[in-house]
């Protein structure tokens, strides 16, 4: 092995360690027996995981995050897939600008987006009397904004190099536009759509900064519940919750990967 290859492997190993270290530490911490985090621990226990259930905030937050994540993911697909098809297939004025616009939520800081959406929702509520602020639909609407860029990016990627003659073949054989989409186009871009669903969900599930502005009394998401808990105390319950969150997302990725190879889509 040449020196160059060794250096490359060392660099790759370091980078991987850098990414994994916090995850490993958090996981380890969640089993510490002591009430306050001390090092080294005096022993190990599983009681923090049971303690999670005593915290209503965590349980409710988890359920809310799940609901918001699923709805935002579905709405993101419903808007992002047609948008990607239009961007990939039609030449129209402002096409490139539209493509950029759909990706901008990626670069707008969450705090800014959160403030803006909060003000927008308050104003809308004043005008229309729709109960939007701190409601589940309000949260979902906001989260759609951050799931769309991922949907558009991943679905667009699966549409580049898409051979449209197979769609013509379907039409030639008697399939109308909708049947052609359902029987031919959708199955062929499925990897991109599945990856978009996964990332939409993960991004929504883990969002903190933007969501901070949009929750209200009695409705909180898991990341915010964790933050609120941290304001009062630091004990291994936090580590246990985090480990569970990591496991949920990890499980989603592993499950998805069995269905479509994520490495090939991303």
């Amino acid at each position, binding site marked *: 092995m040449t020196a160059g290859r060794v250096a490359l492997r060392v660099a790759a190993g370091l980078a991987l360690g850098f990414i994994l270290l916090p995850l490993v530490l958090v996981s380890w911490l969640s089993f510490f027996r002591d009430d306050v985090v001390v090092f080294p621990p005096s022993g190990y226990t599983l009681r923090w995981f049971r303690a999670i259930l005593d915290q209503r905030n965590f349980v409710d937050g988890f359920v809310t995050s799940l609901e918001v994540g699923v709805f935002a993911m579905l709405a993101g697909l419903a808007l992002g897939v047609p948008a990607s098809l239009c961007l990939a297939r039609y030449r129209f004025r402002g096409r490139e600008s539209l493509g950029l616009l759909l990706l901008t939520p990626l670069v707008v800081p969450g705090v800014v987006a959160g403030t803006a959406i909060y003000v927008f929702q308050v104003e809308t509520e004043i005008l229309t009397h729709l109960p939007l602020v701190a409601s589940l639909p309000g949260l979902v609407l906001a989260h759609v904004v951050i799931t769309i860029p991922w949907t558009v990016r991943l679905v667009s990627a699966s549409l580049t190099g898409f*051979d449209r003659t*197979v769609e013509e073949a*379907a039409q*030639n*054989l*008697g*399939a109308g536009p909708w049947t*052609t989409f359902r029987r031919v186009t959708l199955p062929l871009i499925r990897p991109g759509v599945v990856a978009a669903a996964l990332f939409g969900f993960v991004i929504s599930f883990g969002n903190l900064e933007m969501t901070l502005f949009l929750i209200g009394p009695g409705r909180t998401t898991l990341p915010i519940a964790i933050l609120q808990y941290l304001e009062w105390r630091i004990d291994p319950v936090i580590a246990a919750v985090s480990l569970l969150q990591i496991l949920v997302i990890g499980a989603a990725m592993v499950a998805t990967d069995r269905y479509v190879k994520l490495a090939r889509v991303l």
Partner: protein
Amino acid sequence: MARIELEAVSKRYGDFHAVRDFSIKIDQGELVVLLGPSGCGKTTTLRMIAGFVPVTSGRIRLGGRDVTGLPAHRRNTGLVFQGYALFPHLTAAENIAFGLEMRGLPDAVVREKVASALRLVRLDDLGDRLPRQLSGGQQQRVALARALVIEPDALLLDEPLSNLDAKLREEVRVEIRQLQRALGLTTVMVTHDQDEALAMADRLVVMSAGAIQQIGTQRELYEHPSNRFVAGFVGRTNFLSGELVEPGVFRSDGGLTLRYDGRSALSGGVASIGRMSGARRALALRPERLALGASADPARSNHVAGTVEFASYLGAMIEYYVRLSSGETLRVHAPNTGAAGDRAWALGETVHVSWPVEVGLVLEDEHHPEEEHR
């Protein structure tokens, strides 16, 4: 199955005429080939019949039914795409079943028809394979079966052989032709390959720059090309530019005075002989109809001396480039019969090229830019 009828069909993109004034009636069971260089409008014409390109003007009828305004999925044509366009996520059998399912046939009927279609293209055992697990030739047969099984009013073939290697190509073209005949399918095929077109067609349509140059059988196009483009595109031809002196006498730019059959009404140039003075003409001479000799052949009315400039041994014949005394060049194909009288000519040797009057065809000398493609 029914006739295909195009009536003054045109396609314009802005100022660009992709196809102009295309009219043809294709009989039941007939195979018509659209032949021409790339960009001549042949594929656009095929796509207009299939319904993928809307016509700018004109009518299209399939089996007496006016389909001009119908979308592609209501036209009942069977198109074999150049790249086959098989559904990559469906097996061969599912690909073939697709069109039948769209027609709402019951499962049992679909299964039966798919099985017989697979048998027809000799893929009985490969129905469960995905397209990527099939060879190019097999994919091509799946595409053909998929188009045939729906019993289309028109079978449309878009360069169906261009993705196959040379050996397979000849096999498949015989297969397609036999199937098409056996099933009596009215067929339009597009190709830029002259050999393919000549081997498969009942009739050919030679196209250039969006317009039909000539419609006819192989023999009609070869023996009586209506213009210089057709003569150059179908088979090989020598062209000598020049003008007519009087009916039956042609003078080339190099100063040769040559005789042709001036009474023949067959060549497109003849009609306009009346206003012949000064008009540019080309004398077309097929290379296999010219003979080489050591001395002038008095039995033939045209003989010109020249020197052998280049020779290629092509097996069935030897191709000579002869530089004439006038400076012009003629390509001559000498059959390689193996007879004792045959002689090979060496480079630089002086030869006499001779031919009888009926070989020469006088055509309008419109030099066609697209001829360079050949």
